[in-house]
């Protein structure tokens, strides 16, 4: 049984009780993924499983046999920050920085959900193939990621700034 994490393959733990979150933090020393509640209420432990956002505290590591996990440590490439990481710094999208890895991973998958036309509570046209990234859609879809310092405005600006410019690059 093995799992791919940030491109590298590792053996899964023997103890089936071990959450994916504890596996990352305590066995692999990938402490960028954070534990804020350990019960699926805060979003700090969000990672990407084959590109989809999951709460790693509610996932048993052994359930992810054969899957590809990307954590915050896997987003930068060749020493370059992911554009969203850079935008978080520019827009001051954090204070203490504890919810930040979860916010960033969550936002990356959230934008893909919009592009695939997955609707949310605030979506007007449920049949739209590609849902526009606006403030309401973003806030609704990111509401599972708590920030107690209250950096929400900066987080929203960072996400809008990053993905609007990426989308316009793709369009041109």
């Amino acid at each position: 049984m093995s799992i791919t994490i940030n491109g590298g393959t590792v053996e899964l733990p023997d103890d089936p009780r071990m959450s994916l979150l504890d596996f990352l933090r305590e066995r692999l020393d990938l402490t960028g993924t954070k534990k804020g509640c350990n019960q699926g209420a805060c979003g700090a432990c969000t990672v990407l499983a084959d590109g989809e956002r999951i709460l790693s505290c509610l996932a048993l590591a052994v359930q992810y046999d054969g899957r590809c996990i990307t954590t915050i440590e896997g987003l930068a490439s060749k020493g370059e920050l992911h554009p969203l990481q850079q935008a978080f710094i520019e827009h001051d999208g954090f204070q203490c920085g504890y919810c930040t890895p979860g916010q960033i991973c969550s936002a990356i998958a959230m934008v893909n959900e919009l592009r695939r036309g997955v609707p949310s509570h605030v979506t007007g046209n449920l049949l739209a193939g590609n849902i526009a990234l606006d403030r309401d859609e973003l806030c609704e879809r990111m509401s599972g990621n708590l920030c107690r310092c209250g950096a929400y405005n900066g987080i929203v600006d960072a996400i809008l700034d990053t993905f609007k410019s990426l989308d316009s690059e793709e369009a041109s």
Partner: protein
Amino acid sequence: MSLRDKIQQGVMAAAMSAAQKVIAVAPDEWLPGGRPDPLIHQKHGLVGAQIPRIDGPQKVMGAARFAAEVPLEGMLYAALVYSTIAKGRLAALDTSAAECAPGVVLVMTHRNSPRLKSLPPFTVDMRSAAQDDVPVLQNDRIYWNGQPIALVLAETQEQADHAKSLLRPSYMEEHAVTRLAEAKAAGVETGSMMGMRFNDEINDAEKMLAASPVKVDEFYSTPRHNHNALELHAVTVIWNGNSLTVHDTTQKIAHTAWSLAHAFGLKTKQVRVLSPYVGGGFGGKGLWQHQLLAAAAARLAGRPVRLVLSREGVYRIIGGRTTTEQRVAIGAQRDGRFDAIIHEGVAAMTPNNNMPEPFIMGTRSRYAARAFRLGVGTVHLDMMANTFMRGPGEAAGTFALECAVDELAMRLGMDPIALRLLNEPQKDPINGLPFSLREVEKIFRDGAERFGWNRRNPVPAQRREGEWLVGMGVASGTYPHNRMPGGAARLTVTREGHATVEFAGQEMGMGTATVHAQITAERLGLPMTHVAVAYGDSLLPGKVMAVGSAQTASFGAAIAATHKKLVKELISLAGNDSPLAGLSPDEVGGLDGGLAKLDEPARHESYASILTRARRVEVSAQASAPLPLESMHWSMHSHSAMFCEVKVNTVTGEIRVSRILGAFDCGRILNAKTAASQFRGGIIMGLGMALMEESKFDERNGRIMNANLSDYHVPVHMDVPEIDVMWTDTPDPHAPMGAHGVGEIGITGTVAAVANAIYNATGKRVRDLPITPDKLLSVLPLSHSAG
């Protein structure tokens, strides 16, 4: 609080009062801040600039290591077992099954715990970081529902968590006081803390109120709150002989080191507390039982230990903001001038701590009136010790006061801003001191214009948009400018023109490292890239907690004093061949990688040149800040004008905050980017307090019922609109850097602004927080007609 503690509080209060009288009349120049900080005059440099956080890359990459993220060989994991009764004795606790469980190394109870010396609460002894004086696993007594009664150590967290489920405690229960009414019936005492007694009387306020032609006299109540920093409380501890290293997440680094040393009978320097990153604090990240328990267990087991509280554990053993019941009465003349202000009530605390939630603090300096009666009464409950939480006193107090002012404005038929400005005091209404800075009128006028206050309909429940009622509210917030004693720092400049500033400061997201890098670079005349900041380590100079919005002023004053000493040393090293020869440190400042005469910048010599000639690789200085006596000579406060627009659904009672603006009078802003985030963060916590936050306390058994982030609601992305903030940027001439703290002012005033907007929208006045939809449904129509 013991009788000894009470006597100590009384002596402190008397000494403070005597000192205040002398300092109040001393000449300005004798006092710290009597001569403005030279940095105030530097307007176009690093101070005030929008500089991104220097630790930003570490945080966005997940590379910043928090307390539970330090890897150690041979480390054990801990799990805590909590009492399920509020008062009594632990009758039996069979540990055999847990001890036999796989991976278990130790089950620690009061029977085998090392003996620890008891600690004084920090509001009683300024060296301590402890919250209460309850013994930590030293006997079978239970003081509150949720108290730790055992700790399990195992090779993995899973094993520790399983083993803890095998412990079956039984209790001998005693009567616990868990109902506020019962506690009040047992007697109310006047609150006092750290030399302050929360009781002010000027003239006969009740008599004047009775005679006033227009008045408001109402009760307001606020519930318990939990800080809910997103990072769980966590500690990683290692013993090396009699030396203890503690990786903690704390706002009280130096005080935690003193406390652990005291409890274990060590010298302070034998304990090293490291806390470079703190995942949110808000008053909650101090010394609680878990650090002592982890260190005790590590000592018994002879191995390093990591203890991370569960989210439930945070509610069980970390105190929060307590509940208050407040009466606010204001009597006014028909023109709106205040005759009398009464603000009194009770705050719950425990027999073992001393934190009388000082909800009158903001009222003391806010309005002029002919008579005052202000008082905080305390009652004792058998519960988790309450503590400071963002805007302690003011957050709850300004809700009551500023709603009452709004209610009075309605009765007078006056605009609530006009009523506030009419009652602006010329000097501090309680202690008579002059204000060091006060631009309340400016923030209200500028804020009103930017917010479009003139579009508000003063008659409630008039503005409708479909099924929504729309309203606007305003309130003022206030928070004192504090500077703590104990500030010290070390400053080193090298021949290459690089500098290091070192102090035992804490970073919970306020931007500590960034702001002090800016200030130090500006003082030295170096680029920020040439300044390194060392903090988060109890071995560094200074003993200042990050509390009371005071850290930047406290260490900032220490760095200023250190800088002056360093300049003196550099001038002496420069000698008679330097353009600086014959100048005093007061005439010289940092400029372009060296020192220059302030009013004659051509008289300049670089650090490289001075140190090379002196054959020195570097020069270093360490100094302490003067005692913070300035706040006994001037009345020093920050102010806010908070404007809010809400929409209330006439069908469901749902409340949405659609717009909010904060205008701030906080002295000079040191970093426009991080300060704006502090303001917004405070405002958002205020929105939570207004609309959703409450630690639900079961009065039958003293247990918190919603001990998780699913049932304790905090604001999420969808609850928060774009928040507009603005500030005067006028320096306080008597504060270091001209700046006031900005961490707590944002939450004060916000709650009342929301409540007043809800009243304007609906015509319904809710005086009990949080303002949830059920409290509005009784007055809202269940159906609506469009238009």
